[in-house]
Each structure stands twice: as structure tokens, then as C-alpha cells.
């Protein structure tokens, strides 16, 4: 398991390639890349800034990932999350899973993304021509999270 937060831009495709390299034992690689959009809900976005809590954010994300790895039996997880200022088109987050079969890898990546949206100690601020605003969790992310809780 490889869990990183980074203030520097990263190349999610190169990271996926490194993650899957020399893994002829795994049959399935599922990955999700969240990208900084240039507009959201009709508003232009000139950038994002993500606040984090030093010494806490990384360990919390590692705990969430360990929980998902155990629950879905997918130990090979990669999470990279940007912090600080981010420009449109840059990757915000990469979550990837390697597994023998695809079902578990899909589930692990999807559930881990659901958790990151609502339970990773990160706070996103969008900047646009009209100023900056803190992003509130989306209603559907909260509902998804509640559904996960009921399954657990």
C-alpha cells in the first residue's frame, strides 16, 4: 500500500505505470483520476487550493485505505492526493488497485473514493473570476457515504 500527499504536480499515468510494473501476478488494474476542472456547475474555475492538516491527513487516508484493503481483500492500493494550489487540468487525486480479478478492484477504488470525498481531512477551495469559495461536500457524496456506513 502506497499512500502519499504531495504539494507538487504529479503524472497519474506515469504513477499507474510504476504501480503496475512487473506485476504479472495481477490481472486487473483499476484506476481513478480526479482532475481539476475548468468549470463547475456553470462557474469558471481558475484553480483550487487544498488545505490539509500536517501529520494527520496522510495517516487518516492510510487508515481509510487499510480499511478498504481489508474489507475488499485488495491489498495493492495506491493513493496520491495533491495539497496546496492546483491548476485546471492537473490531477487532484489518483486511486488505483491491482487485483487478480476485476470485481474487487472496481469496488475497492470506488469505495475508497467515496471515503476520500467525505472522510479525508482535506478542504478544497475553488478560485474563480468572482473570488474564492470553500467547497461543501456534495449531497450525493454524503448519501453514498451513509450507504457505505450501513453496509459496514
Amino acid at each position, binding site marked *: 500500500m502506497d499512500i502519499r500527499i504531495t504539494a507538487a504536480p504529479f503524472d497519474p499515468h506515469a504513477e499507474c505505470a510504476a504501480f503496475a510494473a512487473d506485476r504479472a501476478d495481477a490481472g486487473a488494474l483499476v484506476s481513478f483520476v480526479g482532475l481539476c476542472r475548468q468549470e463547475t456547475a456553470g462557474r469558471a474555475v481558475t484553480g483550487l487550493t487544498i488545505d490539509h492538516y500536517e501529520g494527520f491527513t496522510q495517516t487518516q487516508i492510510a487508515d481509510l485505505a487499510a480499511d478498504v484493503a481489508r474489507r475488499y481483500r485488495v491489498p495493492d492500493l495506491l493513493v496520491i492526493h495533491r495539497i496546496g494550489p492546483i491548476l485546471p487540468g492537473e490531477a*487532484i487525486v489518483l486511486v488505483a488497485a491491482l487485483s487478480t480479478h476485476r470485481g474487487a478492484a472496481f469496488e475497492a477504488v470506488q469505495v475508497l473514493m467515496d471515503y476520500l*470525498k467525505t*472522510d*479525508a*481531512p*482535506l*478542504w478544497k*477551495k475553488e478560485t474563480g473570476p468572482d473570488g474564492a469559495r*470553500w467547497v461543501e461536500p456534495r449531497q450525493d*457524496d454524503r448519501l453514498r457515504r451513509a450507504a457505505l456506513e450501513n453496509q459496514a
Partner: protein
Amino acid sequence: MQLVFLGKFGELAPKGLASPTLPDDVRTLADLKDWIAGQAPVLGKAMALTTTRVAVNRALVHDLSRPVRADDEIAFLPPMSGG
């Protein structure tokens, strides 16, 4: 004691709150939240209007009757929005 305000709370918290001198009657996390609301009403209102999570020494704490200690680092976390 160190106080940490994350996300939008960080923008609303006066600088001086980071290393506060607390009166003796602030004994628990709940007391501390009330005291903060008195010192910084705009921040206090923002914390009251949303789901505020509290971490003590970098571990989430759900029971606000926990006593506060002089060497604690206490963080206030608005709803998270990662991913």
C-alpha cells in the same frame, strides 16, 4: 495548548487563537468550543452551523466532555471535501 483551525475555519480564526491563554473554567472540549465562540463570534457561528469534528493530538475525538490539557494540540475540522 495549540489550537488548529482547518479549511474555512482557518480563515475565520483570529491569529491570537492559535496559542490561547485559557481561563480556569475551560475544562473540557465543549467548554473550549464555547470559549472560542465568545472570543471569535463569526468563527463560533460557522462552527455551530456545520458539522465540526474535533481532533486532539491528531486523533479524532467524539466525546466533547474530554478534559483539555495544557500540552494538547486541538484541531477543529469543518466538513471534509477531498477527492
